[in-house]
């Protein structure tokens, strides 16, 4: 079974040469640490920066330089700042190649819910609705089940949606799963996890074909 860092490491393998990537808050933010350093990649943050670097050294934080998670950051050579309008031109206009974000629920049709629990929690969608409505390639980083042990990979989302039919791939603590026309398709198992564990933890239709390899991190 993977921890958060394991999930980030596995997703990092999905980042290809020449990609502009938008990383959501939480696990997705960790992905930047594990991308191969022999490929050219730039990270975009929707609050207005392209070419994000690592967190600043202590004492070098700049209040005017943060990412969309409100964390202090740095920039790399070739970086640029811009306003929110141009930032969402990048996102909506499909100039960003890959979006990695968290989710509370994903359906077997690729619907995603991650911004609201009616009557309980309302954080807002932030830029997620624009991202999922636009990105060609959307990967969800999430735990396979919630705290109560209930599956978060469902036939149908129960929570208000963030976007419909948009999720392409899910990397959870248990598995790598592709969203296909016919439902969730199991691609890889996390180290030490059995196919049966994944079947048990997945409420939505899960397609298991042939031998399922253990993922390589």
């Amino acid at each position: 079974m993977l921890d958060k860092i394991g999930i980030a490491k596995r997703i990092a393998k999905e980042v290809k040469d020449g990609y502009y990537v938008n990383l959501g808050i939480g696990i997705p933010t960790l992905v930047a640490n594990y991308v191969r350093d022999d490929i050219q990649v730039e990270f975009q943050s929707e609050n207005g920066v392209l070419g994000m670097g690592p967190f600043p050294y202590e004492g070098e934080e700049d209040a005017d330089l943060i990412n969309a998670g409100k964390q202090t950051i740095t920039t790399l050579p070739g970086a640029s700042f811009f306003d929110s309008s141009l930032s969402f031109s990048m996102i909506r206009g499909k100039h960003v190649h890959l979006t990695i974000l968290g989710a509370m629920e994903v359906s077997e049709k690729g619907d995603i819910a991650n911004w609201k629990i009616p009557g309980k929690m309302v954080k807002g969608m932030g830029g997620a609705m624009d991202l999922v409505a636009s990105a060609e390639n959307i990967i969800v980083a999430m735990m396979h089940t919630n705290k109560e042990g209930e599956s978060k990979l469902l036939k149908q989302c129960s929570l208000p949606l963030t976007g419909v039919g948009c999720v392409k791939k899910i990397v959870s603590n248990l598995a790598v799963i592709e969203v296909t026309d016919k439902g969730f398709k199991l691609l890889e198992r996390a180290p030490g996890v059995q196919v049966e564990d994944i079947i048990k933890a997945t409420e939505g239709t899960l397609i298991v074909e042939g031998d399922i390899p253990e993922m390589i991190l």
Partner: protein
Amino acid sequence: MINKKVNNVKEAMQGVESGMTLMLGGFGLCGIPENAIKALVEMNVNGLTCISNNAGVDDFGLGMLLQKRQIKKMISSYVGENDEFERQMLNGELDVELVPQGTLVERCRAAQSGFPAFFTPAGYGTEVAEGKETREFNGKMYVLEKAFEADFSFVKAWKGDEAGNLIFKGTARNFNPAMCGSAKITVAEVEELLPAGSLDPNQIHIPGIFIQRIFQGNNYEKRIEQRTVRKRD
């Protein structure tokens, strides 16, 4: 040159009244109009509708107005950092319209630019699209969204000149440019106010035509919400 300089925040706030709709720049606590927000607290205007990406934190930014119940309605994209906000919203004390971030900024820009409405893919198939016109273009579905209408817009820039020209710094730019000229009156506060002619005309982010009043702000706190650092090796 048309001079937009006013002497202080008090002059800049002339005409702001209870019940008005205000736009406020910033993303989280980054690039927020600190002086204008403090003035709103002191003026004690209430029943406000505030258009701003976030709602501050409990004791800073728009959170200060929430604490004093000055806000009737918030139009934002993300409000996860503010407990008092969530409490007021879940209790029905505060009216909230959550808008996808890209739609939020474009509704500001539409107001700035004289576009009444535009089609965007964000929110299609979600509750955000409920009651709105949807339409297919080239096989994809889009939602019709409308320009905001606001009375005052408060923005914060790094440098400005007396002609109202603005330059922003880093990610403190965010929503500020799209909120310039998108309300009846736009008030800009700047860290450094210079004479006209001091800024390179090629490097101005927002020309003064979008600004009605500009003033030299002071005592900027620039609070950091998530101080994240790495250790030196």
